């Protein structure tokens, strides 16, 4: 039995459709239920839905053998997992953005508001630039608008929210897409099952 962690929401729905197409269906998962775990004995899969930012943790701790998670979360959490496949969906980018009229003061650290402190720290360290991190959990765009921060490090999908708030992207840090990850130990003991699913999915990745 392969335990699969899917992220709740649009990305999880898309991934489930991909898995269903290659023969790992478990239709209960799409029903309106309070059940947490969905099993299809015949296909040998057990699905559960988790908060997207927790999927990597479930996989790293072995509660799930495999899971699907955005590259943003993988980089931020530094989870010790195998990253077996780029699913090429859920695409966006990690970027530095700020007010359109922002001019950097090189005599003081940059104030960076972000949900991704590790990503921000690593990025600015690579540029040898000192920063002050302001950790937020959501609505990051407000921080530079209210002058709480100079810039934000955040996910940018279409850029509409930025545009509507007179913000723009200054630098792109890395592209993001959904990845199929595997617990390292599970992979050792369920190599064939996991390789089969990865290989079938790879043929369906656009």
């Amino acid at each position, binding site marked *: 039995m392969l335990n699969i962690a899917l992220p709740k929401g649009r990305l999880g729905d898309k991934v489930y459709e991909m898995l269903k197409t290659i023969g790992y269906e478990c239709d209960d998962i799409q029903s309106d239920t309070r059940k947490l775990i969905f099993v299809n004995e015949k296909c040998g899969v057990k699905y559960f839905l988790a908060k997207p930012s927790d999927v990597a*943790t479930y996989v*790293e*701790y*072995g509660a799930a053998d495999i899971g699907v998670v955005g590259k943003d979360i993988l980089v931020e959490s*530094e989870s*010790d*997992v*195998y*990253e*077996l*496949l*780029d699913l090429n969906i859920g695409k966006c980018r990690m970027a530095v953005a700020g007010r359109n009229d922002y001019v950097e003061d090189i005599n003081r650290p940059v104030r960076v508001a972000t949900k991704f402190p590790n990503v921000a720290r690593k990025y600015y360290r690579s540029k040898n630039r000192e920063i002050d991190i302001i950790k937020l959990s959501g609505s990051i765009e407000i921080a530079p608008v209210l002058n709480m921060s100079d810039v934000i490090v955040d996910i940018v999908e279409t850029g509409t929210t930025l545009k509507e708030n007179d913000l723009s992207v200054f630098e792109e840090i890395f592209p993001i897409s959904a*990845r199929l990850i595997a*617990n*390292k*130990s*599970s992979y*050792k*003991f369920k*190599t064939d099952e996991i390789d089969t699913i990865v290989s079938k999915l790879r043929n369906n990745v656009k």
Partner: protein
Amino acid sequence: MSNNYTWQEKYYFKIRDAFESSGYKPYRMRKFEEYSLYADNRSFLTSEYIITFTDTDGKLLALKPDVTLSILKNTKANENVTEKLYYKENVYRLDKHSGEYKEINQIGLECIGKLDTLNVIEIIELGLASLAATGKSYILDISDMGIINSLLEYYRVDELAKTAIFEQMSIKSKDELNKVAAEYGVNAELTDRLIRLLNAPSDYDAALKVLKAVSVTESMKEIADKFAIIKDVFDNTEYKGRLKLDFSVIDNTGYYNGVIMQGYVDGASKAVLHGGQYDKLVEKFGKNLSAMGFALYVDELRNIQEVKNEFVDVLLIYSGKSNYKEVLRLARELRENGESVRTDRSEPSGLLYGQKIIL
């Protein structure tokens, strides 16, 4: 052996016997060590966070985050003397998930001297024996740092690209490896060889064939020959099928140079055994020797162990009116007959016993 030994104790006794019967001697050290040892070798440690404190003479000390460095600092090994040591120590490291320091129970061994393939095979065998002693299904993955290093040298890959390639190899990410190759302008033939190494089947023989096929340097061919010898040694043993070649096994490239290994036990979510050959670290200590060892992270096994209630052969219940001398005499007599005895005024909850005597 008493029924009341913890699984950790029973496990330790088993592997201690295996280590000692292979000529390894116990190594003991204090809980703390001079901080400078870790400051000088910071990049060898898994975390840069170390608990430090000042001794009464002003010297900066640290609660040890590692045992290998202390063993190397004190080793008496030389060209003619190979030192073989095992240890059971607690190390203190920062847990990246909780952000707090943790005391980690580590058992391991180190072999320092002029090592040859036989020494390496003995260490691999002890690694396999240590995993087998858990009583669970297990896998020991091995590789050699020389494989990827040699390939990257052969194709003259620069340091930045090397780091990126090692990173993607270690997480088995073929897609990211292709992106890195494109970004750094890596030779297509090299990328193909790396992908073939990542695609190598989990079967030892099949993986060895892949290694032979992608080998371009003499040193890669020598590694393949060494792995063929290792295969022959374990082919007709209980370890056949347990030892695998996995070319994604990579550790600190600044210190490890030869065979590298990681062990997994079914049910434990992380590798429980980490080890390898670290001649580059020995060199930093000014010695022209080789060293290889491994550490077992026993705490990773605790979640897969069945927790049993405490058991005594005889539960001796006495009351305030009992003759204490008589209670003690009876308990002593039973113990002399090999029984374990607990004296109590009432039956403790959760205690399992063979016989209850009420006085």
